[in-house]
């Protein structure tokens, strides 16, 4: 599904290289976790996958279902099935959440050559999904993420993911700012979406999230390189020992 080869990335503005050659393969239906200390390049990787133009790829490639992902605009990536759950979801005053959801869903459908959703179909879909994620319709009447608590914003991200049905979901520190109850709701939302055709790349600093979203593979990212890969037990080991070993090793 996703193949990252020798990916080198720098910040466009000051040319600081953040990622120094990442190799990662994610198969259909797999859940991969990327763990690492602050500043290791985790968020950079997620932004590069989604197509944020603050970053420049200087070497390497990313193939998504065989296609060159780096050649695609952010909206084209979304229509092709890539979804980024933001670490800090953006507040957009003046854009109603429902308007946003409908515009996004229909834009993707249109890009894929599908018919646009009718309003009743759209409403039904949103209501059902929102209920599962304990999101009230009142919340959805507000402008996008405005006045939402941290937990509400994250649940709103999962709602978008559930409605847009991506084939690759990249989750950037989705656990940050969540209490344990909110974490469970979010994790249940993600687990409900797991399936043989949908892959996840879960980026996190802490092992805690991985108790709830159990990964198939865990990778340790440090100073812009994947320094170790293993199964889910690697996360537990990190929880116990911390990142000290890896920070040293990469330096």
């Amino acid at each position: 599904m996703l193949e990252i080869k020798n990916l080198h990335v720098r910040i466009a503005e000051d040319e600081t290289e953040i990622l120094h050659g990442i190799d990662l393969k994610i198969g259909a239906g797999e859940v991969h976790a990327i763990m690492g200390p602050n500043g290791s390049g985790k968020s950079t990787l997620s932004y590069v996958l989604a197509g944020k133009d603050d970053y420049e790829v200087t070497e390497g490639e990313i193939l998504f279902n065989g296609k060159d992902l780096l050649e695609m605009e952010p909206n084209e990536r979304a229509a092709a099935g890539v979804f980024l759950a933001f670490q800090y979801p953006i507040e957009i005053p003046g854009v109603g959440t429902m308007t946003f959801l409908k515009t996004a869903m229909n834009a993707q459908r249109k890009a894929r050559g599908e018919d646009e959703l009718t309003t009743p179909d759209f409403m039904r879909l949103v209501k059902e999904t929102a209920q599962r994620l304990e999101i009230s319709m009142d919340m959805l009447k507000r402008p996008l993420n405005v006045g939402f608590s941290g937990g509400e914003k994250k649940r709103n991200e999962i709602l978008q993911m559930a409605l847009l049905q991506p084939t690759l979901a990249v989750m950037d520190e989705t656990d940050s700012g969540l209490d344990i109850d909110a974490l469970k709701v979010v994790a249940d939302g993600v687990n409900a979406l797991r399936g043989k055709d949908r892959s996840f790349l879960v980026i996190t600093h802490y092992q805690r999230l991985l108790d709830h979203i159990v990964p198939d593979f865990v990778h340790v990212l440090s100073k812009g390189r994947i320094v170790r890969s293993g199964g889910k037990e690697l996360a537990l080991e990190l929880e116990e020992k911390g990142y000290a070993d890896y920070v040293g090793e990469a330096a």
Partner: protein
Amino acid sequence: MASNLASENRRVETAAEKALAGHFDAMPADDPMHEIRSSAFDAIRQAGLPHRRVEDWKYTDLRTLLKDVPAPAAPGDVEKARAILAETDPLSDLAGSRIVFVNGHFVPSLSDMAAIADQVDFASLGRFLADGGAIFDRFDTADPAETPILALNSAFMSDGAVINIRQDAEIEKPIHLAHLFVGEEAGLQTLRNLVSVESGARATIFETYHGPDDLGYHTNTVSQIHVADGAQVRWIKLVEDGSAATHLGMAISRLGAKAVFDPFTYTAGPALTRNEMRMIMSGPHTKSGIRGATLVRDKCHADFTLLVDHAVPDCESREYFKAVIDDTARAVFQGKIIVRPDAQHTVGQMMSQALLLDEGGEFDNKPELEIFADDVICAHGATCGEIDEDMLFFLRSRGIDEAEAEQLLVQAFLAEAIEEIGDEAIEQVLEARTRKWLGMAPEIE
């Protein structure tokens, strides 16, 4: 001394000034309004059109911007106007009554005030002009030497709406004052509205201006408004004159005690626009939300100039203006709040914000607070920026293409001011105007 004399005589010197003098001199001298008109036009003869060295006109130099002024327009084709109105009326079925002017002349056959006839008195201005304009004494005015728009209006006014909303009237649906310019020949339409809202009455007035693109016609419109004690008035002005048109507008209002007056000025279209608003709060516990949205592109120039006079204590004014500027267009906001020595406990909150869609655009912002009382809460703020890249990326990452994401963000930017109107049906009308300006489909459900 010779040069002094020469400069005195050279006030009327640009093509537009000469055209105005010619049009004025061609008006009949036996008009009962002649004296009022002449003394107003003398202000123009003496000072010429305002220019950048006149502080109030620093950013809108009419001497440079006005290339010509067409002659007063002949009445337009009523059937053509009927068809245009049916096709383009932004209010569709929202209004409960309608007063229609075509090329600056009242058209009874397109107007309908029947639904509110028992609560509202209406006459066109024409008959009051015929008896010499005694009615003007009942309304606040301004010195024509300081207000060129008013001076030109007094000189050339041809018609307008005289409206009296009776005590405690409750007018649920907006009263639509529709102004259409029709025809293929440019002309000058000059309108004067006199509106008095008696105590305790509630009403919404919705003014619209529409005309053909690529025709250099001129609109000059002045409204004198008196809002009596406890009355509540919402006043929406939608300026959608054609792409080559000039729109000069002014509203002079006086607010009584415990009155609520919320004007919203939405401008999208004309090549040159200047809207001025002067408001005096003359009774305590009055509230006013003065808001506006300006959308300009190409080489358009749109100016909003505001003067709010807090003359008495315990009043509240909120000023909130938004401008969207594309290409090499220019928007101007000048907002002055005066708080008189007695006007303790005044609250005045002014904010103006511009969104630049292109590096070639310009926003000139001039807030002025003149505060002579010591127990007041007054603030002003201004921002000028581009589309937020993070917001744009967020929307794109959800599959929305760049153009549509930008449109959503422009709408969102304006919505912050529009949503303060507090009437969903009216907000939807204005949001639909934004979609039209952006070239989007008419409806998002």
